């Protein structure tokens, strides 16, 4: 996996050094559309429902202490810093990671990858680099979509059940958000994108054993990517809390 990443990077940089574009813009945008734009409805919907649930559940608890005005800040911080990137990572690992692994795996078993290699085209640069870059670039945008959807949902709950007007809600959110939290969320998202892309492509290109192999690798890709995203997130949080309290 480590060498896979290094080889992808050197193969791509090699091409850049020779003064050529590493891959066609249209190929990159095809993946950004597939991984990014087409994921917006799923990410927005799931985050909206989670934001709704979170605001409701915490709201009823906080109401007992008369502190329901903490709901906006709670949801905003939780999503921008933690849940937005994490949920998006899990959703993309399932939605896009699986699709990349299955696609590359099928190409691998039907000799398409070997044919690309035989033509003298670096398969890592041609197949892996645009996919990884698309996930890397789009992940923070989707995390943002997730956070916005959750905040909108909690605004609706606050308005409907806890008598917090939208203007007041906005004030509370802006007051509680810290640039530091936003940056943390964005950094994490970039790393999750890279992680999911690398795992999905690696599993796809190392498929062995025909159609069944594609199935096994796809499952393994999703499981590994979700576990890695959660594991990496935990590690990131530990480092963050210990070194930047």
């Amino acid at each position, binding site marked *: 996996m480590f060498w896979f990443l290094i080889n992808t990077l050197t193969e791509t940089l090699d091409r850049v050094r020779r003064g050529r574009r590493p891959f066609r813009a249209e190929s990159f945008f095809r993946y950004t559309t597939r991984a990014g734009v087409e994921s917006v409805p799923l990410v927005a919907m799931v985050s909206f429902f989670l934001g709704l649930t979170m605001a409701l559940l915490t709201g009823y608890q906080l109401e007992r202490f008369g502190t329901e005005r903490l709901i906006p800040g709670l949801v905003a911080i939780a999503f921008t810093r933690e849940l937005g990137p994490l949920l998006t990572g899990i959703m993309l690992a399932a939605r896009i990671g699986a699709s990349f692994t299955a696609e590359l795996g099928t190409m691998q078993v039907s000799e398409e990858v070997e044919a690309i290699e*035989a*033509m*003298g085209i670096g398969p890592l640069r041609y197949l892996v680099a645009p996919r990884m870059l698309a996930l890397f670039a789009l992940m923070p945008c989707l995390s943002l979509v997730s956070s916005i959807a959750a905040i909108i949902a909690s605004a609706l709950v606050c308005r409907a059940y806890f008598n917090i007007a939208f203007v007041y809600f906005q004030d509370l959110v802006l007051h509680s958000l810290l640039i530091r939290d936003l940056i943390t969320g964005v950094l994490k998202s970039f790393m999750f994108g890279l992680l999911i892309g690398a795992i999905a492509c690696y599993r796809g290109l190392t498929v062995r054993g025909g159609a069944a192999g594609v199935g096994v690798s796809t499952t393994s890709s999703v499981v590994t990517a979700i576990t890695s995203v959660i594991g990496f997130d935990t590690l990131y949080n530990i480092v963050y809390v210990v070194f930047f309290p």
Partner: protein
Amino acid sequence: MNERPNHVVELREVQLDFPGKRVLDGVSLKVGPLDRLVIMGQSGSGKSTILRMVLGIIRPTAGEIFFKQFEISRLKRRKLQQVRAQIGMVYQYSALLSSRNVRDNVALPLEELTTKSRAEVDQLVDEKLELVGMLDAKNQLPSELSGGMRKRVSLARALVMNPELILFDEPSAGLDPVISSVIDELIISLTERSKVTSIIVTHEMDSAFRIGTRMAMLYQGKIIADASPNEFKKSRHPVVQQFLTGSTEGPILEGSKDAVATK
């Protein structure tokens, strides 16, 4: 190596081991310019492996493989990729990219390896598709084509970079006899017209004798015969004889599981 070699491909004492099995055991072959070398042998004897080794996809355990002056078996990845652009390969099952249409499949090497404009690429693609008689199917996906048509597109893709060497892996496999002959004739006319050297791997006799200017027989990891088609037919080697006649009696099936099945 500064002297100009008089071969296009040369294998010197190539040995290849897979876990628990020696696939190639000292294979030596020379392919001269404009030769059409047919390598024959049983299924699973390592014929296709030789093609993959010439492309540098599989590295030999021992021995050397040359394409012109380049020692394929020792080249670094970057150089290997440049050398591969001079070799075309037609796979047994065509290996066309299933999500790209015929035009895009043939255009792929040009788009990725050259700096030609879209108009130049289109012109070259049309030219090659015309040669193989597939211009009308330009916008179709590989899944919409028959096996023979796919093979033609694959041939156009192999020709599009004007390679010096084309490798064919079982060109007539899975095709009916008529289409198979058409593909064979296409291979002959295109390799002659484009002045390309070729190595063809097959186990189909008719096809082999139609295409080949030289024949080699691979048996138990070794080349047991390497001659012109006429001399090859006259060979007294029992394995070659059995292969030519397709008889079940002879050294080929001795001790193999297939022999048990026949008896």
